[in-house]
Protein backbone atom coordinates (compact mmCIF):
# COMPACT_ATOMS: atom_id res chain seq x y z
CA UNK A 1 0.00 0.00 0.00
CA UNK A 2 2.81 2.38 0.92
CA UNK A 3 4.87 1.46 -2.10
CA UNK A 4 2.01 2.70 -4.25
CA UNK A 5 2.60 6.21 -2.97
CA UNK A 6 6.37 5.89 -3.14
CA UNK A 7 6.09 7.33 -6.63
CA UNK A 8 6.62 11.10 -6.19
CA UNK A 9 4.00 11.91 -8.83
CA UNK A 10 1.35 9.83 -7.05
CA UNK A 11 2.47 11.25 -3.73
CA UNK A 12 1.91 14.78 -5.02
CA UNK A 13 -1.58 13.71 -6.09
CA UNK A 14 -2.24 12.29 -2.64
CA UNK A 15 -0.76 15.30 -0.89
CA UNK A 16 -2.99 17.64 -2.85
CA UNK A 17 -6.01 16.55 -0.83
CA UNK A 18 -4.32 15.00 2.22
CA UNK A 19 -2.38 18.19 2.99
CA UNK A 20 -5.38 20.52 3.28
CA UNK A 21 -7.33 17.81 5.12
CA UNK A 22 -4.58 17.53 7.75
CA UNK A 23 -4.10 21.30 7.92
CA UNK A 24 -7.76 22.21 8.40
CA UNK A 25 -8.23 19.22 10.68
CA UNK A 26 -5.37 20.48 12.85
CA UNK A 27 -6.78 24.01 12.93
CA UNK A 28 -10.27 22.84 13.97
CA UNK A 29 -9.04 20.29 16.53
CA UNK A 30 -6.52 22.67 18.06
CA UNK A 31 -9.05 25.52 18.30
CA UNK A 32 -11.55 23.22 19.95
CA UNK A 33 -8.85 21.67 22.12
CA UNK A 34 -7.43 25.02 23.23
CA UNK A 35 -10.88 26.32 24.11
CA UNK A 36 -11.64 23.12 26.01
CA UNK A 37 -8.32 23.03 27.83
CA UNK A 38 -7.78 26.71 28.59
CA UNK A 39 -11.35 27.88 29.19
CA UNK A 40 -14.00 25.19 29.40
CA UNK A 41 -12.34 22.49 31.50
CA UNK A 42 -12.35 22.80 35.32
CA UNK A 43 -9.12 23.34 37.31
CA UNK A 44 -7.80 20.11 38.73
CA UNK A 45 -8.01 19.42 42.50
CA UNK A 46 -4.31 18.88 43.15
CA UNK A 47 -2.63 21.08 40.55
CA UNK A 48 -5.23 23.87 40.38
CA UNK A 49 -5.05 26.08 37.30
CA UNK A 50 -1.53 24.96 36.39
CA UNK A 51 -3.00 21.71 35.09
CA UNK A 52 -3.79 23.66 31.92
CA UNK A 53 -0.08 23.58 31.06
CA UNK A 54 -0.43 19.81 30.79
CA UNK A 55 -2.69 20.12 27.75
CA UNK A 56 0.09 21.91 25.87
CA UNK A 57 2.96 20.02 27.42
CA UNK A 58 2.08 16.32 27.33
CA UNK A 59 0.97 16.15 23.67
CA UNK A 60 4.11 18.10 22.70
CA UNK A 61 6.28 15.46 24.37
CA UNK A 62 4.29 12.68 22.68
CA UNK A 63 4.62 14.34 19.30
CA UNK A 64 8.34 14.89 19.81
CA UNK A 65 8.89 11.19 20.46
CA UNK A 66 6.54 10.13 17.68
CA UNK A 67 8.26 12.44 15.19
CA UNK A 68 11.68 11.05 16.07
CA UNK A 69 10.48 7.46 15.77
CA UNK A 70 8.97 8.33 12.40
CA UNK A 71 12.31 9.85 11.34
CA UNK A 72 14.07 6.65 12.38
CA UNK A 73 11.61 4.47 10.45
CA UNK A 74 11.79 6.71 7.36
CA UNK A 75 15.58 6.64 7.64
CA UNK A 76 15.56 2.86 7.72
CA UNK A 77 13.36 2.80 4.61
CA UNK A 78 15.65 5.31 2.93
CA UNK A 79 18.78 3.40 3.95
CA UNK A 80 17.56 -0.01 2.81
CA UNK A 81 15.50 0.86 -0.27
CA UNK A 82 17.17 4.20 -1.03
CA UNK A 83 13.87 5.86 -1.67
CA UNK A 84 14.09 9.65 -1.96
CA UNK A 85 10.56 10.17 -0.60
CA UNK A 86 11.50 8.49 2.68
CA UNK A 87 14.42 10.91 2.93
CA UNK A 88 12.20 13.85 2.31
CA UNK A 89 9.75 12.62 4.96
CA UNK A 90 12.53 12.19 7.51
CA UNK A 91 14.04 15.56 6.73
CA UNK A 92 10.67 17.34 6.85
CA UNK A 93 9.84 15.79 10.23
CA UNK A 94 13.03 17.03 11.87
CA UNK A 95 12.26 20.71 12.37
CA UNK A 96 8.65 20.23 13.62
CA UNK A 97 9.92 17.42 15.86
CA UNK A 98 12.64 19.64 17.31
CA UNK A 99 10.10 22.43 17.82
CA UNK A 100 7.77 20.08 19.71
CA UNK A 101 10.72 18.91 21.82
CA UNK A 102 11.58 22.52 22.66
CA UNK A 103 7.91 23.23 23.45
CA UNK A 104 7.76 20.22 25.76
CA UNK A 105 10.94 21.33 27.54
CA UNK A 106 9.86 24.95 27.93
CA UNK A 107 6.30 24.25 29.06
CA UNK A 108 7.64 21.49 31.30
CA UNK A 109 9.98 23.83 33.09
CA UNK A 110 7.28 26.52 33.36
CA UNK A 111 5.03 23.88 34.90
CA UNK A 112 7.80 22.66 37.16
CA UNK A 113 8.23 26.00 38.89
CA UNK A 114 4.74 26.28 40.44
CA UNK A 115 4.31 22.54 41.00
CA UNK A 116 7.72 21.28 42.11
CA UNK A 117 9.32 24.60 43.02
CA UNK A 118 12.08 24.33 40.41
CA UNK A 119 12.45 25.02 36.72
CA UNK A 120 14.74 22.10 36.16
CA UNK A 121 15.67 18.88 37.84
CA UNK A 122 18.11 16.22 36.63
CA UNK A 123 15.35 13.71 36.50
CA UNK A 124 15.32 10.89 33.98
CA UNK A 125 12.51 12.13 31.85
CA UNK A 126 13.69 15.73 31.55
CA UNK A 127 17.27 14.80 30.83
CA UNK A 128 16.30 12.29 28.16
CA UNK A 129 14.04 14.82 26.43
CA UNK A 130 16.86 17.38 26.48
CA UNK A 131 19.13 14.76 24.93
CA UNK A 132 16.45 14.10 22.32
CA UNK A 133 16.58 17.80 21.44
CA UNK A 134 20.33 17.60 20.86
CA UNK A 135 19.91 14.48 18.75
CA UNK A 136 17.46 16.45 16.61
CA UNK A 137 19.99 19.28 16.33
CA UNK A 138 22.72 16.88 15.29
CA UNK A 139 20.47 15.23 12.71
CA UNK A 140 19.52 18.57 11.14
CA UNK A 141 23.14 19.71 11.23
CA UNK A 142 24.20 16.71 9.11
CA UNK A 143 21.74 17.78 6.42
CA UNK A 144 23.08 21.34 6.64
CA UNK A 145 26.76 20.50 6.57
CA UNK A 146 27.06 17.73 3.98
CA UNK A 147 26.74 19.33 0.58
CA UNK A 148 26.28 16.31 -1.66
CA UNK A 149 22.61 15.39 -1.34
CA UNK A 150 22.91 11.67 -1.83
CA UNK A 151 25.72 11.42 0.67
CA UNK A 152 23.88 13.66 3.12
CA UNK A 153 20.83 11.39 3.02
CA UNK A 154 22.92 8.27 3.72
CA UNK A 155 24.82 9.92 6.56
CA UNK A 156 21.69 11.51 8.04
CA UNK A 157 19.90 8.14 7.94
CA UNK A 158 22.76 6.48 9.83
CA UNK A 159 22.73 9.30 12.39
CA UNK A 160 18.97 9.05 12.88
CA UNK A 161 19.03 5.29 13.37
CA UNK A 162 21.84 5.38 15.92
CA UNK A 163 20.08 8.20 17.74
CA UNK A 164 16.90 6.18 17.96
CA UNK A 165 18.58 3.11 19.42
CA UNK A 166 20.06 5.35 22.07
CA UNK A 167 16.77 6.85 23.24
CA UNK A 168 15.58 3.85 25.27
CA UNK A 169 19.10 3.48 26.66
CA UNK A 170 19.14 7.09 27.78
CA UNK A 171 15.73 6.83 29.40
CA UNK A 172 16.54 3.54 31.06
CA UNK A 173 19.98 4.49 32.30
CA UNK A 174 18.96 7.80 33.77
CA UNK A 175 16.00 6.24 35.50
CA UNK A 176 18.41 3.76 37.01
CA UNK A 177 20.68 6.57 38.03
CA UNK A 178 17.80 8.32 39.72
CA UNK A 179 16.37 5.37 41.57
CA UNK A 180 19.83 4.73 42.92
CA UNK A 181 20.45 8.25 44.12
CA UNK A 182 17.30 10.31 44.35
CA UNK A 183 14.21 9.09 46.05
CA UNK A 184 12.02 11.87 44.60
CA UNK A 185 10.43 10.55 41.46
CA UNK A 186 8.11 12.74 39.50
CA UNK A 187 5.05 10.94 38.30
CA UNK A 188 2.84 12.33 35.60
CA UNK A 189 -0.90 11.81 35.86
CA UNK A 190 -1.41 8.57 33.98
CA UNK A 191 -4.14 8.57 31.39
CA UNK A 192 -6.24 5.77 32.94
CA UNK A 193 -6.26 7.65 36.24
CA UNK A 194 -7.27 10.85 34.53
CA UNK A 195 -10.80 12.17 34.91
CA UNK A 196 -12.97 12.45 31.83
CA UNK A 197 -13.09 16.26 31.82
CA UNK A 198 -9.29 16.31 31.73
CA UNK A 199 -8.94 13.47 29.27
CA UNK A 200 -11.16 14.99 26.57
CA UNK A 201 -9.17 18.21 26.06
CA UNK A 202 -5.90 16.27 26.34
CA UNK A 203 -6.95 13.87 23.60
CA UNK A 204 -8.22 16.75 21.45
CA UNK A 205 -4.87 18.50 21.78
CA UNK A 206 -2.96 15.29 21.08
CA UNK A 207 -4.99 14.70 17.92
CA UNK A 208 -4.48 18.33 16.90
CA UNK A 209 -0.69 18.11 17.40
CA UNK A 210 -0.55 14.88 15.40
CA UNK A 211 -2.53 16.41 12.54
CA UNK A 212 -0.31 19.50 12.67
CA UNK A 213 2.79 17.32 12.52
CA UNK A 214 1.31 15.46 9.55
CA UNK A 215 0.43 18.69 7.77
CA UNK A 216 3.91 20.18 8.30
CA UNK A 217 5.50 16.97 7.05
CA UNK A 218 3.38 16.83 3.91
CA UNK A 219 4.11 20.53 3.24
CA UNK A 220 7.81 19.94 3.81
CA UNK A 221 7.83 16.98 1.43
CA UNK A 222 5.99 18.93 -1.27
CA UNK A 223 8.52 21.74 -0.91
CA UNK A 224 11.37 19.23 -1.19
CA UNK A 225 9.87 17.67 -4.32
CA UNK A 226 9.41 21.12 -5.86
CA UNK A 227 13.01 22.07 -5.00
CA UNK A 228 14.33 18.84 -6.50
CA UNK A 229 12.31 19.43 -9.68
CA UNK A 230 13.39 23.04 -9.94
CA UNK A 231 17.01 21.95 -9.63
CA UNK A 232 16.56 19.36 -12.37
CA UNK A 233 14.68 21.51 -14.87
CA UNK A 234 14.40 25.24 -14.12
CA UNK A 235 11.03 26.74 -15.01
CA UNK A 236 11.04 28.42 -18.43
CA UNK A 237 10.18 31.79 -16.92
CA UNK A 238 13.13 31.60 -14.54
CA UNK A 239 15.47 30.60 -17.38
CA UNK A 240 14.26 33.48 -19.52
CA UNK A 241 14.80 35.89 -16.67
CA UNK A 242 18.28 34.56 -16.08
CA UNK A 243 19.06 34.89 -19.76
CA UNK A 244 17.76 38.45 -19.75
CA UNK A 245 20.21 39.22 -16.95
Amino acid sequence: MFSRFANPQRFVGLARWLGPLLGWGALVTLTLGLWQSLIASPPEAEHGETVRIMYVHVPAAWSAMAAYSAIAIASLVSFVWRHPLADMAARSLALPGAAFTALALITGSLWGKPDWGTYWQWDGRMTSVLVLFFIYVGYMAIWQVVEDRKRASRLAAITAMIGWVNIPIIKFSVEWWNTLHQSATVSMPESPGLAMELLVPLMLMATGYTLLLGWLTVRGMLAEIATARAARCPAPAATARMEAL
Partner: protein
Amino acid sequence: MMRAILLRDLRLAARGASGTGLSLAFMALFVLLCGLALGGSQPALGPGLLWLAATLSALLGLDRFYQPDQETGALAQMHHAGASETAIATAKCLSFALTAIIPLILAAPFLALLLGMDGPSITGTVLSLIVGAPALTAYASVTGALLAGQRSGGVLAVILTAPLLIPVLIFGTEAANVFAADGLATVQFRILAGLSFIAVALGLPATVAALAANRGA
Protein backbone atom coordinates in the same frame (compact mmCIF):
# COMPACT_ATOMS: atom_id res chain seq x y z
CA MET B 1 45.61 -5.84 6.12
CA MET B 2 44.33 -4.76 9.50
CA ARG B 3 47.81 -5.20 10.92
CA ALA B 4 49.30 -3.07 8.17
CA ILE B 5 46.83 -0.24 8.77
CA LEU B 6 47.34 -0.43 12.52
CA LEU B 7 51.14 -0.39 12.19
CA ARG B 8 50.96 2.53 9.78
CA ASP B 9 48.84 4.52 12.23
CA LEU B 10 51.12 3.70 15.15
CA ARG B 11 54.15 4.74 13.08
CA LEU B 12 52.42 8.00 12.21
CA ALA B 13 51.59 8.54 15.88
CA ALA B 14 55.19 7.85 16.88
CA ARG B 15 56.27 10.60 14.49
CA GLY B 16 53.85 12.99 16.12
CA ALA B 17 51.11 13.14 13.51
CA SER B 18 48.25 11.88 15.64
CA GLY B 19 47.90 14.79 18.03
CA THR B 20 48.21 12.64 21.14
CA GLY B 21 50.28 15.33 22.78
CA LEU B 22 47.63 17.94 22.05
CA SER B 23 44.91 15.79 23.61
CA LEU B 24 47.03 15.27 26.70
CA ALA B 25 47.78 18.97 26.95
CA PHE B 26 44.07 19.75 26.61
CA MET B 27 43.17 17.27 29.33
CA ALA B 28 45.78 18.65 31.71
CA LEU B 29 44.71 22.21 30.97
CA PHE B 30 41.06 21.31 31.54
CA VAL B 31 41.85 19.84 34.97
CA LEU B 32 43.98 22.88 35.79
CA LEU B 33 41.18 25.26 34.82
CA CYS B 34 38.68 23.22 36.84
CA GLY B 35 40.92 23.38 39.87
CA LEU B 36 41.28 27.14 39.54
CA ALA B 37 37.62 27.82 38.78
CA LEU B 38 36.33 25.60 41.56
CA GLY B 39 38.75 26.99 44.11
CA GLY B 40 41.47 24.36 44.66
CA SER B 41 41.38 20.60 45.18
CA GLN B 42 38.03 18.89 44.65
CA PRO B 43 38.43 15.26 45.72
CA ALA B 44 34.65 14.67 45.75
CA LEU B 45 34.22 15.97 42.20
CA GLY B 46 37.43 14.29 41.00
CA PRO B 47 35.99 11.22 39.20
CA GLY B 48 33.42 13.34 37.40
CA LEU B 49 35.95 15.96 36.36
CA LEU B 50 38.43 13.36 35.11
CA TRP B 51 35.67 11.63 33.13
CA LEU B 52 34.69 14.98 31.64
CA ALA B 53 38.32 15.78 30.82
CA ALA B 54 38.87 12.42 29.13
CA THR B 55 35.60 12.59 27.20
CA LEU B 56 36.15 16.13 25.97
CA SER B 57 39.72 15.53 24.88
CA ALA B 58 38.64 12.37 23.05
CA LEU B 59 35.88 14.39 21.34
CA LEU B 60 38.28 17.13 20.33
CA GLY B 61 40.60 14.53 18.84
CA LEU B 62 38.02 12.72 16.77
CA ASP B 63 38.32 14.89 13.69
CA ARG B 64 41.67 13.14 13.27
CA PHE B 65 39.94 9.75 13.25
CA TYR B 66 39.18 9.38 9.52
CA GLN B 67 39.18 12.90 8.09
CA PRO B 68 42.92 13.24 7.23
CA ASP B 69 42.93 9.82 5.56
CA GLN B 70 39.81 10.64 3.61
CA GLU B 71 41.35 13.91 2.47
CA THR B 72 44.69 12.48 1.39
CA GLY B 73 42.99 9.56 -0.32
CA ALA B 74 44.57 7.04 2.04
CA LEU B 75 41.13 5.54 2.81
CA ALA B 76 40.47 5.05 -0.90
CA GLN B 77 43.92 3.47 -1.28
CA MET B 78 43.20 1.02 1.55
CA HIS B 79 39.91 0.18 -0.11
CA HIS B 80 41.57 -0.40 -3.49
CA ALA B 81 44.22 -2.50 -1.83
CA GLY B 82 41.45 -4.87 -0.85
CA ALA B 83 40.80 -3.87 2.75
CA SER B 84 37.16 -4.21 3.68
CA GLU B 85 35.48 -1.29 5.44
CA THR B 86 35.15 -3.53 8.49
CA ALA B 87 38.90 -4.14 8.56
CA ILE B 88 39.62 -0.42 8.13
CA ALA B 89 37.16 0.53 10.87
CA THR B 90 38.48 -2.10 13.30
CA ALA B 91 42.10 -1.18 12.70
CA LYS B 92 41.34 2.53 13.02
CA CYS B 93 39.42 1.97 16.26
CA LEU B 94 42.33 -0.01 17.70
CA SER B 95 44.81 2.67 16.73
CA PHE B 96 42.55 5.42 18.11
CA ALA B 97 42.23 3.52 21.39
CA LEU B 98 46.01 3.05 21.56
CA THR B 99 47.06 6.54 20.56
CA ALA B 100 44.21 8.74 21.80
CA ILE B 101 42.35 7.03 24.65
CA ILE B 102 44.98 5.01 26.51
CA PRO B 103 47.38 7.97 26.92
CA LEU B 104 44.49 9.90 28.49
CA ILE B 105 43.79 7.04 30.91
CA LEU B 106 47.48 6.82 31.78
CA ALA B 107 47.56 10.56 32.48
CA ALA B 108 44.44 10.43 34.66
CA PRO B 109 46.16 9.25 37.91
CA PHE B 110 48.63 12.13 37.77
CA LEU B 111 45.91 14.67 37.14
CA ALA B 112 43.92 13.06 39.96
CA LEU B 113 46.69 14.11 42.34
CA LEU B 114 46.15 17.74 41.28
CA LEU B 115 42.53 17.36 42.33
CA GLY B 116 43.56 15.90 45.70
CA MET B 117 41.95 12.49 45.15
CA ASP B 118 42.93 9.52 47.34
CA GLY B 119 44.14 6.06 46.25
CA PRO B 120 40.89 4.05 46.02
CA SER B 121 39.17 6.91 44.24
CA ILE B 122 42.00 7.15 41.67
CA THR B 123 41.96 3.38 41.12
CA GLY B 124 38.18 3.46 40.65
CA THR B 125 38.39 6.28 38.14
CA VAL B 126 41.12 4.60 36.09
CA LEU B 127 39.28 1.26 36.11
CA SER B 128 36.00 2.87 35.07
CA LEU B 129 37.80 4.72 32.26
CA ILE B 130 39.27 1.42 31.07
CA VAL B 131 35.86 -0.26 31.11
CA GLY B 132 34.30 2.73 29.32
CA ALA B 133 37.09 3.14 26.77
CA PRO B 134 35.50 0.87 24.11
CA ALA B 135 32.34 3.00 24.20
CA LEU B 136 34.34 6.23 23.86
CA THR B 137 36.26 4.74 20.93
CA ALA B 138 33.22 3.29 19.17
CA TYR B 139 31.12 6.45 19.31
CA ALA B 140 34.08 8.62 18.36
CA SER B 141 34.57 6.29 15.40
CA VAL B 142 30.95 6.68 14.23
CA THR B 143 31.08 10.47 14.35
CA GLY B 144 34.55 10.52 12.83
CA ALA B 145 33.31 8.40 9.93
CA LEU B 146 30.13 10.46 9.50
CA LEU B 147 32.14 13.68 9.26
CA ALA B 148 35.09 12.21 7.35
CA GLY B 149 34.29 14.34 4.31
CA GLN B 150 33.99 17.55 6.32
CA ARG B 151 36.95 19.83 6.86
CA SER B 152 35.54 21.70 9.82
CA GLY B 153 33.38 19.24 11.67
CA GLY B 154 34.75 20.04 15.13
CA VAL B 155 31.70 21.52 16.84
CA LEU B 156 29.30 19.28 14.99
CA ALA B 157 31.34 16.27 16.13
CA VAL B 158 30.77 17.27 19.73
CA ILE B 159 27.03 17.82 19.16
CA LEU B 160 26.65 14.43 17.47
CA THR B 161 28.71 12.40 19.93
CA ALA B 162 27.74 13.98 23.25
CA PRO B 163 24.15 12.59 23.35
CA LEU B 164 25.52 9.10 22.65
CA LEU B 165 28.08 9.43 25.41
CA ILE B 166 25.71 10.68 28.11
CA PRO B 167 24.84 7.22 29.53
CA VAL B 168 28.53 6.27 29.46
CA LEU B 169 29.45 9.45 31.31
CA ILE B 170 26.73 8.91 33.92
CA PHE B 171 27.66 5.31 34.67
CA GLY B 172 31.39 5.91 34.34
CA THR B 173 31.28 8.57 37.04
CA GLU B 174 28.95 6.48 39.19
CA ALA B 175 31.14 3.40 38.87
CA ALA B 176 34.20 5.43 39.88
CA ASN B 177 32.33 6.90 42.84
CA VAL B 178 31.11 3.60 44.27
CA PHE B 179 34.42 1.78 43.69
CA ALA B 180 35.99 2.85 46.99
CA ALA B 181 33.11 1.35 48.98
CA ASP B 182 31.94 -1.58 46.86
CA GLY B 183 34.77 -2.56 44.51
CA LEU B 184 34.38 -3.82 40.98
CA ALA B 185 31.33 -6.05 41.31
CA THR B 186 28.79 -3.24 41.31
CA VAL B 187 25.71 -2.62 39.18
CA GLN B 188 27.37 0.53 37.83
CA PHE B 189 30.45 -1.27 36.56
CA ARG B 190 28.30 -3.94 34.95
CA ILE B 191 26.10 -1.41 33.22
CA LEU B 192 29.17 0.50 32.07
CA ALA B 193 30.57 -2.71 30.58
CA GLY B 194 27.19 -3.38 28.94
CA LEU B 195 27.16 0.12 27.47
CA SER B 196 30.62 -0.51 26.05
CA PHE B 197 29.44 -3.72 24.40
CA ILE B 198 26.38 -1.98 22.96
CA ALA B 199 28.55 0.87 21.69
CA VAL B 200 30.88 -1.51 19.87
CA ALA B 201 27.99 -3.55 18.45
CA LEU B 202 26.34 -0.36 17.17
CA GLY B 203 29.40 1.67 16.38
CA LEU B 204 31.29 -0.69 14.10
CA PRO B 205 28.45 -1.37 11.62
CA ALA B 206 27.50 2.32 11.64
CA THR B 207 31.12 3.30 10.99
CA VAL B 208 31.31 0.83 8.14
CA ALA B 209 28.08 2.21 6.64
CA ALA B 210 29.26 5.81 7.01
CA LEU B 211 32.65 5.04 5.43
CA ALA B 212 30.88 3.33 2.53
CA ALA B 213 28.56 6.32 2.12
CA ASN B 214 31.50 8.72 2.14
CA ARG B 215 33.24 6.60 -0.48
CA GLY B 216 30.15 7.09 -2.60
CA ALA B 217 28.79 3.55 -2.42
